[in-house]
């Protein structure tokens, strides 16, 4: 049995060449229509580095007090409030910034930034922290020993440790005590051409502050917007080339 054989990518390449990117009109919520160029991936095709998933967050549209993205994430992945806010896992959180000079308040969601050069992967002693070829940074919980080096290394405080025994997990989002976890960009949805739960919730609430897509495709909505408006990476000085970018900060 070939347990270590790398999946054959040739079929996918042929498919991509033939498809050349498909323009799909998606209705993601009542009144919200996105015309989006998507690279459809068949279930049996492996992810490839032709895609770099990213997110562009418009903080001007991100409403102070709105928590819809956090709620959607918690529901999607079965993160529950155990009454211990200091240690309860959080994959996405709202952060408030206040400009000392002007008093201007900015609210933004903060989560795993899916770095091209992730410090969590650098420090992981077992290889559990890894980066998929399409840019999504994940934890292989089968080999995570719960040492929490990655949590110390992450400049964005994006990872959580599961302290409690969990039950009734979501089939698409296995989580367990003694392992580290973080935002997965909802790979289980993205692999099937859907949007991450937070993006869907934000659009559903008519805020549209989050745009998710393929940064490597110049015709994708996210690439066009990133080219048109000024956006920045948080802690760009660390040269991690994050997949998540912010407008208006």
């Amino acid at each position, binding site marked *: *049995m*070939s*347990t270590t054989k*790398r*999946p054959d990518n040739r079929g996918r390449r042929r498919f991509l060449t033939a498809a050349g990117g498909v323009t799909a009109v998606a209705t993601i919520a009542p009144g919200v229509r996105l015309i989006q160029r998507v690279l459809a*991936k068949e*279930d*049996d*095709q*492996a*992810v490839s580095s032709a895609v770099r998933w990213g997110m562009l967050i418009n903080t001007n549209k991100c409403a102070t007090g709105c928590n819809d993205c956090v709620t*959607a994430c918690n*529901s*999607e*992945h*079965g993160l529950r409030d155990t009454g211990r806010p200091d240690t309860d896992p959080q994959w996405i959180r709202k952060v408030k910034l206040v400009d000392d000079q002007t008093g201007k308040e900015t609210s933004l969601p903060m989560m795993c930034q899916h770095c091209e050069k992730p410090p969590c992967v650098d420090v992981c002693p077992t290889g559990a922290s*890894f980066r*998929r070829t*399409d840019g999504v940074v*994940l934890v*292989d*919980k*089968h080999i995570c020993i719960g040492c929490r080096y990655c949590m110390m290394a992450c400049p964005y405080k994006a990872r959580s440790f599961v302290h409690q*025994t*969990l039950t*009734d*997990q*979501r*089939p*698409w989002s*296995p*989580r*367990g*005590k003694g*392992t580290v976890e973080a935002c997965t960009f909802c*790979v*289980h*949805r993205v*692999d*099937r051409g*859907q949007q991450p*739960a937070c993006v869907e919730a934000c659009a559903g609430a008519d805020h549209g502050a989050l745009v998710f897509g393929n940064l490597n495709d110049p015709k994708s909505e996210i690439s066009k917007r990133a080219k048109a408006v000024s956006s920045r990476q948080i802690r760009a000085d660390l040269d991690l080339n994050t997949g998540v970018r912010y407008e208006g900060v």
Partner: protein
Amino acid sequence: MTTHRITAFLLSGSLFLGLALTANALSGPKIPQARGEKCVEPVEMMRRNHMEFLKHKRDATMRWGIRTEKHSLIGCIECHAAKGEDGKYIPVNDPDQACHSCHDYTAVTMDCFSCHATVPKKGAAPAGSKGDS
């Protein structure tokens, strides 16, 4: 004469007990009937290699985003989770259920279900993976 009878009685008794025990041991674990037409692999193959299939599939899914249903744990649970009298699914790692029954019999501890869901959930099918709450 009496001694012979007692000996014969004891011998036949122990033989009967021995046969009963053997029959019990040979009957093996009891697994609830799975739904679906047939398993994704022949039964003999599955008995011996299901852990290898699962391990291979888990890496393909996690590292390469290959999300076919064949050999996936979600796929196994979809078919093998039985429903109780109340119409609710019984966790596959409950005693006498598909996973636990065999693993108990062979005295092999599994750690899948400290993280993985033990019952099918709405939305877990490949078509869409929306949360259920």
